[in-house]
């Protein structure tokens, strides 16, 4: 990108005029002497310090900072805002020369706000211009334009034409850099007009030179040549060799393009001489480039080669300089990006913390909802349990009523059989029967108060009952009780006398009418969490012919037992059942109950 770089040289050409007039070693020395005599920390010393640092800008910029810092301290102490602003601007200049754009921007910004506080338009405009320069360097064209426009406005407000011209030129250069040549030309023309009104030849020369470049870029070679020639004329008039050399080189280049090699050579040689005189290596390189092309066209290959070598050497050293500053610039940019990244990281971190808090809060709310849900469910469950307990109580009361209903029924059946027995048998057997009956009755009386007794106790009662009935049937009744091995009779709880009505049924409707001996087998098994009684008899079976008979077959006791099992099933929430089945010989009854253990 050689073109914008060259353009920038033109800007600097203008700016430097503003920064310092003539750099003279003796001026530096005299300032230093004065400082030594004037040790009082007042505004005069501050002014001298700023001036000294300003003198050192190009010769020894690194040394300038200590003076500037002192100037800032003194100005602050004395409340001299302008002094502080000037010092900050000079600090910016020092950084700028050292290519430390970041710190330069910082210092200029401070100077700008200070100058606005005073207010001092001139100072403000100069700072705006410097800010624009740095942004242009950083290729931040939008911000550069912004600053230059503000610079232009303040200059116009002050009525300072010179500043206005510079502002217009700088805006034009930005347009050229962004290849908006037409806009550039228009701004340059405005600047040129003003410069002519002012009759400021330096500005006329510089602007004309830039205008020529813009035309060249637009491809209007003749117009460009005319402007360059004019620039050369004015430069010679004011003896400005920088502009003259630059313009002569440009004329040479255009002539090479127009194949006017002799003219090109003449101009290039002039430019070369001037460049050497002022030590401007870049223009010297340009001159050699033009000469090399001219020699080549003229067939002087050795000379062309020589010129080309010189061009390359000079260009390389210029490029090295540029590269160095480019490198510094890159470093600065990198540093800026790094800081930006750190800031972004911090923002991200804070966002993360915020998110974590948010998630935490949401989780907390969810947890609370969940907790309430659990609490509610538990409460409902307790409520349910309470209801169930109440229902159980009601059911138990009903059960108790049923049990007490059953006993008289059983007792009267037995009394009936005693009467029957006495009328048929002798006294000794009647007595035996009676003792057993009283024992059974006593046991039934005691147990009917209990809602459950152990299986063992219940089976003892059944045993006793069957013994009594066996006596009555003149020992034609035989029975057998089998208990599954995985049942603990002492630890299993059963409702008392649940089997009795079925056994009674088997005896009186199955075995009594039968000819010969009858057999009742009681089996007790475990089926999952249910207890199963199986009562088998080999009696005559249920009467089948007569429907009415069949209906009446379900005795009062069996009906009560059915109700008891229903209520028990309800309390335990497990379905108990009663099944009556006809067999080829006799009847089988299966009763299942919820298995209940004592321990």
């Amino acid at each position, binding site marked *: 990108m050689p073109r914008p770089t060259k353009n920038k040289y033109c800007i600097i050409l203008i700016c430097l005029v503003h920064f310092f007039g003539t750099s003279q070693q003796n001026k530096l020395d005299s300032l230093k002497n004065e400082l030594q005599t004037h040790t009082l920390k007042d505004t005069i010393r501050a002014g001298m310090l700023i001036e000294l640092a300003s003198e050192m800008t190009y010769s020894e910029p690194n040394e300038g900072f200590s003076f500037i810092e002192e100037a800032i301290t003194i100005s602050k102490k004395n409340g001299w805002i302008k002094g502080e602003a000037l010092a900050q601007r000079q600090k910016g200049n020092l950084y700028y020369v050292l290519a430390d754009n970041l710190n330069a921007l910082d210092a200029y910004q401070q100077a700008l706000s200070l100058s606005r506080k005073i207010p001092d338009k001139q100072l403000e405009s100069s700072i705006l211009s410097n800010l624009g320069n740095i942004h242009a360097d950083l290729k931040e064209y939008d911000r550069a334009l912004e600053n230059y426009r503000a610079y232009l406005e303040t200059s116009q407000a002050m009525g300072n034409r010179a500043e206005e011209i510079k502002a217009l030129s700088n805006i034009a250069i930005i347009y050229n850099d962004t290849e908006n040549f037409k806009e550039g030309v228009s701004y340059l023309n405005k600047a040129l007009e003003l410069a002519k009104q002012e009759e400021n030849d330096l500005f006329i020369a510089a602007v004309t030179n830039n205008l020529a470049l813009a035309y060249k870029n637009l491809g209007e070679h003749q117009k460009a040549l005319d402007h360059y020639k004019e620039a050369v004329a004015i430069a010679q008039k004011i003896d400005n060799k920088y502009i003259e050399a630059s313009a002569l080189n440009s004329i040479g280049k255009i002539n090479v393009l127009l194949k006017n090699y002799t003219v090109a050579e003449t101009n290039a040689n002039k430019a070369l001489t001037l460049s050497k005189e002022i030590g401007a290596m870049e223009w010297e390189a340009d001159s050699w480039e033009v000469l090399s092309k001219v020699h080549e066209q003229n067939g002087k290959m050795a000379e062309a080669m020589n010129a080309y070598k010189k061009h390359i050497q000079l260009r390389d050293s210029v490029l090295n300089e540029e590269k160095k500053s480019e490198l510094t610039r890159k470093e600065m940019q990198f540093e800026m990006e790094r800081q930006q990244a750190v800031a972004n990281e911090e923002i991200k971190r804070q966002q993360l913390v915020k998110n974590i808090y948010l998630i935490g809060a949401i989780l907390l709310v969810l947890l609370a909802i969940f907790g309430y849900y659990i609490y509610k469910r538990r409460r409902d469950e307790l409520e349910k349990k309470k209801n169930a307990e109440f229902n159980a109580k009601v059911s138990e009361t009903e059960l108790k009523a049923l049990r007490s209903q059953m006993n008289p029924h059983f007792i009267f059946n037995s009394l009936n059989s005693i009467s029957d027995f006495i009328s048929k048998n002798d006294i000794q057997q009647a007595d035996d029967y009676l003792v057993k009956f009283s024992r059974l009755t006593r046991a039934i009386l005691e147990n009917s108060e209990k809602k459950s007794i152990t299986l063992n106790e219940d089976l003892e009662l059944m045993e006793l009952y069957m013994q009594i009935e066996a006596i009555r049937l003149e020992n034609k009744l035989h029975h057998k009780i089998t208990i599954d091995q995985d049942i603990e009779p002492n630890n299993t709880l059963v409702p008392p006398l649940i089997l009795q009505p079925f056994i009674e049924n088997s005896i009186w409707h199955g075995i009594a009418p039968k000819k010969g001996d009858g057999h009742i087998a009681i089996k007790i098994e475990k089926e999952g969490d249910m207890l199963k009684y199986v009562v088998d008899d080999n009696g005559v079976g249920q009467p089948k012919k007569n429907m009415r008979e069949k209906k009446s077959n379900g005795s009062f006791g069996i009906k009560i037992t059915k109700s008891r099992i229903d209520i028990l099933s309800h309390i335990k929430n497990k379905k108990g059942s009663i099944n009556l089945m006809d067999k080829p010989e006799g009847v089988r009854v299966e009763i299942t109950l919820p298995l209940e253990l004592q*321990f």
Partner: protein
Amino acid sequence: MLKALIVDDEQHCIDRLERLLRSSTHNIQIIALCKTIGEAKKEIAKITPDILFLDVQLGNETGFDLLSQLNSIDFEVIFTTSYDKYALKAIKFSALDYLLKPIDNTELDNALQKLRQQKSLKEASKKIDVLFHNFKESNASSKRIAIPTVEGFTMIDTKEIIRFQSDANYTHIHTLSRKKITVSKTIKYFEDILDENMFFRVHKSHLVNLGYIKTYTKGKGGHITLSDGIQIEVAVRRKDELLKILRT
């Protein structure tokens, strides 16, 4: 030859017992048959019987009243009753013998058999003391219980007992004084006769005095710690009922 006295206010009961005793293989001589306490007192003073068959319910009075009016008891007592839950409990507490009416021949035989094996008559007097103590003492928690042991009988205040532990057909009784008494009775026997407000069966093999439960620790069934520091497991199926009792 043992001298027997029958006290009953109903003639048919006297007749039945008399008939059974006469046909018994044991050598029993029936000396007197009495229907009232007054008659009985006179007869006892006169004939000094070896066995007294005593009906619990004698009209408006009880067999216990008769015993309490005697200066000394140097005979065995067998109560007869048809149905009296509370009297039976008291009799069982004192380890005295009893027969349920109508009296069964086999049971009478067993009672007489046991009587013959009795070591001395002193035991009878002791048992009756326990009976009277329990009758006089209205406080349910300070009942005395006669415990049959190998040597004879030990009388213990129920509040002296911390717990019963079952060991097949034997039961170990642990007392406050850190004594361990082993009895050849099932734990169920004690559970049945002891006041259910005072003792609770927390486990198949443990019957504990509710007054000595220090803490209950939660768990499947949980466990309790008694005042002597012993920890006892609570059966899962007993947990709810135990907690209900402990809360009240």
